């Protein structure tokens, strides 16, 4: 019912001496032999997997200093092994007008042009040909051919490479270690976040339990107001008792009697009888020493005292 749409990309051959490209869409890139190192070797191993760990040592003596990536593929009983510098290739491609975003797949000339029968002209100075199964570049003077390299009908192989943009900064192994480290950190922080959320939830539940256990009012404003009322009452009662204790512990002079003791609406009242004006001073000094504030007046030999609580 549905046919799979396969996008077709143009294929370009890139050499250090290639002319600049002007691209609208992504392209497949075939790298010139000048951009990589290749060896055709016979190794006493059975699979490609066993070859890969050996690649670095197989190039050890011939490569100039640099940060290389390695790859290989098998053809018959022989292995083609490659060494290349990601950054160098990417720089050359960028110089030629092929930015990283415009690269679809990258191939070596070795894998794609190994079936060339004759030498092909690349430009005025270089030709490309296959010698002993290896694709090589030679100066143009070694061949009189005028036939140019044509990539129109080329059938590309599966031997592609993935160029690493930041391979020169950090190697892939370190990068994966860093990624793994970040992943572990994300896991740890996420775990702590979940634990913290659980703790919050638990505390909120415990707080709700407090409300029912202590039979609190629904809102904290109501509860604070209730507590304030209780505390005011408690403080007033303590002050009342302190006043009563002071009044009752006082020694009155002969003939002076306490006629009335009253408390209502936060007012504490006393009436002393049998007292002449001026005699109240010793009682006043007693009250003042205890730090009480009061108002007092004489009416018909009775001294009225009032304290606000």
């Amino acid at each position, binding site marked *: 019912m549905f046919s799979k749409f396969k996008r077709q990309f143009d294929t370009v051959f890139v050499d250090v001496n290639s002319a600049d490209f002007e691209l609208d869409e992504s392209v497949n890139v075939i790298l010139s032999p000048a951009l990589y190192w290749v060896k055709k070797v016979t190794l006493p191993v059975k699979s490609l997997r066993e070859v890969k760990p050996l690649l670095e040592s197989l190039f050890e003596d011939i490569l100039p200093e640099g940060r290389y990536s390695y790859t290989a593929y098998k053809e018959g009983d022989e292995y083609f092994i490659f060494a290349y510098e990601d950054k160098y290739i990417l720089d050359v491609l960028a110089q030629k007008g092929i930015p990283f975003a415009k690269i679809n797949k990258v191939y070596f000339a070795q894998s794609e042009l190994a079936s060339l029968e004759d030498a092909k002209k690349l430009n005025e100075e270089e030709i490309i040909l296959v010698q002993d199964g290896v694709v090589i570049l030679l100066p143009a003077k070694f061949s009189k051919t005028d036939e140019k390299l044509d990539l129109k009908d080329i059938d590309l192989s599966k031997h592609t490479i993935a160029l690493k943009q930041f391979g020169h900064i950090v190697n892939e192994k370190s990068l994966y270690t860093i*990624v793994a480290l970040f992943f572990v950190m994300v896991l740890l922080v996420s775990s702590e976040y979940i634990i*913290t959320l659980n703790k919050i939830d638990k*505390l909120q539940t415990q707080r709700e339990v407090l*409300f029912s256990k*202590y039979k609190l009012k629904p809102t904290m404003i109501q509860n604070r107001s209730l507590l304030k009322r209780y505390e005011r009452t408690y403080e007033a009662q303590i002050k009342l008792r302190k006043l009563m204790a002071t009044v009752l512990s006082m020694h009155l002079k002969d003939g002076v009697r306490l006629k009335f*003791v*009253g408390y209502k609406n936060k007012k504490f009242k006393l009436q002393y009888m049998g007292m002449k004006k001026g005699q109240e001073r010793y009682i006043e000094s007693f009250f003042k020493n205890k730090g009480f504030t009061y108002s007092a007046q004489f009416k018909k030999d009775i001294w009225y005292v009032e304290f606000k609580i």
Partner: protein
Amino acid sequence: MNRVNPIHIAILLIVLLLFVMLKLNTAREELTDAKESYSQTLVLAQKIKGLKSTYFNKTKVLKSINMLLRNATVRSAGISKKVTNSSILLTSKSMNIRSLNFLMGKILNGTYVVSELQIKRLSDKTASLRLEIKW
């Protein structure tokens, strides 16, 4: 280049890490608030419970006042008692000093909310009393 670049994964993880750290930071602040709110509620609840059970417990007040009134020293004072929903009013037109001292000693040393008090001297040995206790 179709292969997923590990750098992109690293950047994604960094963004994810920053996001989770931000959420964690907010959650930590919420946790601190929740802890504070819990302790405040606990302190408030304990204070309310303490004061309520000590000063505003109707059953406890009625029980202890009734016990006081049954005491032989007070019983002879002819104290009348009137209980409402929120208070108890004790009145005596005339009671002796001994009964008054005993009763007031117990009231003032106890945890009662005295809302009204009137003691009038009638003679050297007698006085009238009006005492209201609330809860």
